[in-house]
Every structure is written in C-alpha cells, then in structure tokens.
C-alpha cells in the first residue's frame, strides 16, 4: 500500500454540455507505484488532460475514488488541494509554462516562495534545480529570451525544485524539436532515477513513448491498453508485456 502513489477506482468524469452530459472518462481503474515513469497516450480528446488534472487535484471526479498519496481528491477543499500540489506535485504543461514577468530564477523560486521557504534556502535549491537541467547560467534571463527547449527545462526545474513525489507532465515535448525533446526527456529520466520521483506523462509523441516504462492508452475516455515494459526498450521490443486493465 505504501508505495502506491496513485489509485483510481471506477473513476468517471462527465462534463455538462448543453442539456446533456459528455463523458470524458469512464470507469478508469489504474494504480501507479512510486518511482514509475509512465505515460498516458491516445488520440486527441481521449481524456488524457482530464485524467492528469484530476490526479493533480485541479479537477474532481464525478464518480469513483481517486487517491493520491493517501488523499481522497473528491473530499479535499480548494485549500487542501492547493497544499497537496504545493508540497508534493510538480506540473509541466505543454505551453505557457513560465510567468513572463519573472526571470528564470524567479520562476523556479516561485514554487518555494509558496512553500514559505527562506531566501538562502531558496537560492540554494533553485540553483541546484537549474543545474539539474543545465541552465545555471541563464538564471537572470527572462523567459522571452529562451528557446522553447530551454523554457521547458526551466519548467522541469520548477516542477522539480521542491522535490515533489509526483510530476505530472502534459505533453511536455509538443512544441519541441527532436533534439530538445530527447534532451529534456533524458533530464527527466535522470531525475526519476536519482530522486525516485514518480512521473506521469500525457503525450502523442513517439519520442516520449520510447522513454516510458509503462504506456496506458486511452480511447474515448476508456483505458484501451496498459502495457508495462521491462527496461528501457522501445514498445516493439517489449518483453513480458502485461495487460493490467482493459475494458
């Protein structure tokens, strides 16, 4: 039980649309363990973002139970949910990751300010995080002066600076070229191994899938397949594949 970081039981999410309802997620049962490097794939509109947002406590399930690090997402207040994200969850988004008025340093620092950490500690941690992603020289630059890849790396540094247990990355490579995509994926993989941080991706990107240990495919809000890979091999080389949940 201890190392189960995310558990969803019969998770259903419906959105009101006009008079009726639209089912974005139906009956999702998934379990993620600590240290996993996994991803949700599927066509556009299949519910990937919705799933990540619910796990990240930005949204709540219509039915079912979602338990993240021992917290039932449905019963959290706004404040408690914010606290959970603040302390334990790092977010990386597809675009607009950074606050344009702040420097690279300040963008990363923001996460620690919310945790009310003191200035010396913040400085040390921020510089450490920027080193992880190889941007320690860019600390005083504004986001507008960065390339897309550098911007995403700052976002990774910001997600990682508070050493969260879980990082949720929603299509982090969507705007990157192949070289940058590989570079940030390697960075994340490294952090996953060094800090044992759990990563959950949402992606259409073949390059991302190559790095993942587990691939969950969503189709029309349902889990179509859940494949666990052994080692770092590509999906075609998969050994010991097992379907955990399929409906």
């Amino acid at each position, binding site marked *: 039980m201890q190392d189960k970081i995310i558990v969803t039981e019969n998770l259903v999410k419906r959105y009101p649309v006009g008079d009726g309802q639209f089912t974005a997620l139906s009956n999702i049962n998934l379990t993620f363990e600590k240290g996993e490097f996994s991803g949700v794939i599927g066509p556009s509109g299949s519910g990937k973002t919705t799933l990540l947002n619910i796990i990240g406590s930005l949204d709540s399930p219509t039915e079912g139970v979602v338990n993240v690090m021992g917290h039932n997402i449905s019963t959290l207040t706004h404040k408690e*949910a*914010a606290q959970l994200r*603040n302390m334990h969850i790092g977010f990386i*988004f597809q*675009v*607009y990751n*950074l606050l344009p*008025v702040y420097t690279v340093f300040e963008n990363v620092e*923001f996460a620690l300010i919310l945790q009310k950490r003191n200035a010396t500690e913040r400085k040390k941690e921020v510089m450490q995080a920027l080193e992880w992603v190889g941007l320690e020289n860019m600390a005083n630059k504004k986001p507008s002066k960065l390339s897309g890849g550098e911007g995403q790396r700052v976002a990774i540094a*910001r997600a990682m600076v508070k050493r969260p247990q879980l990082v949720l990355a929603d299509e982090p490579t969507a705007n990157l070229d192949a070289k940058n995509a590989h570079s940030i994926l390697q960075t994340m993989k490294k952090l996953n191994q060094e800090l044992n941080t759990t990563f959950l991706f949402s992606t259409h990107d073949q390059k991302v899938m190559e790095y993942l240990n587990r691939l969950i495919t969503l189709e029309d809000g349902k889990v179509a397949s859940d494949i666990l890979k052994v080692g770092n091999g590509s999906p075609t080389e998969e050994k010991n594949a097992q379907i955990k949940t399929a409906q």
Partner: protein
Amino acid sequence: MIKFIFKAILRDKNRSILPVMVVAIGVFLTIALSGYLTGMLGDIVDQTARFQTGHVKVMSRAYAQNIDQLPNDLALLGIDKVHQELENDFPDYTWVNRINFGGIIDAPGSNDKSKGQGPAMGMAIELFSESSGEVGRLNLTNSLIDGKVPEKSGEVLIGYEFAKKLKVKVGDELTYMGNTMNGSMTFAKFIVSGTVRFGVASMDKGTIIIDFTDAQQILDMANGAGEILGFYKDEVFIQEQTEQMCDVFNAKYAQDPDEFAPIMKALGEQNSMGTYLNLVNSVSSMFVIVFIMVMSVVLWNTGLIGGLRRYQEFGIRLGLGEAKGHIYKTMIYEAVIIGTIGSIIGTALGIGVTLLMQKYGIDISGMMKDATMMMPTMLKSKFSLHLLYIGFIPGLFAMVIGNMLSGIGIYKRETATLFKELEV
C-alpha cells in the same frame, strides 16, 4: 510574496500603466475640482461677507424683515448704545456701520445740461476711520482705476463703468437725488475722487461709495445706521461661532416687543449664504461618490481585460499549488500598490494645480460682464488639507473595488476550467 508582486507591477507595464493612469487622472480631477469649488464658493462667500452680510449683521427687526427694499425708514437708531454693547460683548469682532441707499445720480454738464444720469446703488461706509478697516476690507485702494479713495467729506467713489456711462472723470461733480429716512426729497453734491473696479459687474455699473457720516447727514439718519456689520478679527470665518453669537445677542432682546429693537443675523442666515455653504460640502462629497463609482467600473473593466490576459498566469500559479483565495488576495495587494501609486501621482498633480490656481487664478471677467450676481471675476482654487485625502482614499478604494469585482469572475471559475485556458 509582496516583493514578487511589486516586481511584476514594475516590470509588466501593461498591468500597471493603464490602471495607474486611470487612478491618477481620477484623483487629479477630484482634487483639482474640489479645490476649485472650495475656492470659488469660498470666494463668493467671502466677497458677499465683505460687501453685504458681514460675518454677522445687526439691524432693526423691521429692517431685517424688509431688507430687500433698502428700508432706511426702518433703520436702527441709537446706534452708539448698540455699538457699546456689541464691543463689550463681542470684543473679537470689528463692528462697522453701513447704509445702503438708492437714488438718482446726475452728472451736470456745461450750460445746465446733464452729461448723464442714472439710478445708483449707494453704499455708505466708514471711509475715514482707520479702525473700521473698511477701505482695506473692500479692497478699495487696489481696485482704483483712477484717482484715490475719498479723504474728506463730500467726495465720492464711483464704479468705473458707471463713470463711463455718466461721462464723468475724477474731479467732476455729481448730484445725488433721493429720499431721506423720513421720506422727504434730498439733494447732495459730491466730487468724484476716484473710479473703481469692484470686479463685480453689477457693482461696476451702478455703485457709488460715500462716507457714512455724509450719508447720515444727507439721509437725515443722526445716530442711525441701516446695518452694523461684525467681522471676526481673524478674518477666518467660523459658521458655528457666528450662529452662537446670534443666539446670545438675540436672547437679550427676546422679551422686547419693539419692532425696531436690534436683531443679529449670521452670514449663513443671509442672502441664502447657508445654501452656498452647504453646497460647498455636498458638491464635493457628491463628486467623490460619483468618482468612486465611475472609477470602480472603469477599473473593473480594465481588471477584467487584464484578468483575461492573465488566465495563463493564474493557471500556472494554481498548478504550482497556490490556493485560489491566495491568488485573489495577491490581486488585492496588487490593487493596493497600484492604487497607492496612482493616487500619489494624482494627488501631487491635483495639489500642484490647485496651488497654482490659488496663486494665479484665471481671469473670467470677460465672461462675467453681464452677471448681476455677486461673483468674483477671478477663478481661484483654494488648497485645504482635506485635498490630501479627498482624492487619495477614493483612488485607492476604486482600484481595490475594481480588482475585487474583476477578481470574482476568476474566483468563480472552476479551477480546471481556468487551467484549461492554458491549452490554446
């Protein structure tokens, strides 16, 4: 966190400049207009006090009742006794005699023909008594266009437009025709000692000023006066104090049935001056209220536009684990900072303009040519301490309300919805 908000305000010009400008302009207008209103209405009150009402005025009861008709037949008599009493009871005031009278002025020309003729408003004041301070009070020396202030009996000062109409110059003779206190005809000859510009169109066109003692003689008003005006020696007028004085004075005569017994009236009770005084206050406060409402709506809208632009930022901050309530709170802090900056700028500008307008004023005598009201011909503002907060507080207030209103929209949105605005 406050430091972070500050940085954002300083760096994001889009976020700060427009609201700072809106607040600054609003605050500036409030202060400049309020200073102007205070100045203008204050001037009217002051001018009226000097020329017509005094800070308080003592008359006979009957005169007070018919004051519009210049009823010198109802004038107060035995004024030496009244003066004694007033000076004893209210030593902080200067008490001066006045007689307002009407009549016809004729300017005799050569060979018995008249150069000009016209109805005149006569004002008799204590011209020759230095302690009365009347020459200075009516600013006569500075208002002279030509000649000098009368120095001896039989001299007259005349409004410069009136002099033009009568075609008289300094040194010319004028004949006054009118009625004595008792209703018989009276004539008197005067020498024009000077022409004046009162700065009040109606007076410039028809007023003559003679010495009080001359008027007593001509109008047969020995030991009598139409009015005794009281001026507070500090010249700063306190409405409540004058009202109290009137109560004290009038109580002494409450039992006296004589319709010629003296009665004292405060400035606020005369010439609808009370209404003016209240107007000063209510116009200012109305303006402030309207200002807060208009500014709030404007800032609400700029806040909404800004808020839409900032959904991204809010989404990121939510993702980072900032609570919605905290984001809302920081928006309010931001409003306080921006409102303060805008208010400081607006207050500085407003007070600057007010001080300039107080010093130099704007000459509107051209526009006032036909005015019959007692209106000053210079627009002057007046600085008072309340200008320091009259714009500042509403400016801050409007900015905070504006941001609170626009923030509610953000607050009400579902977290996830806000967050999805990130995906374009």
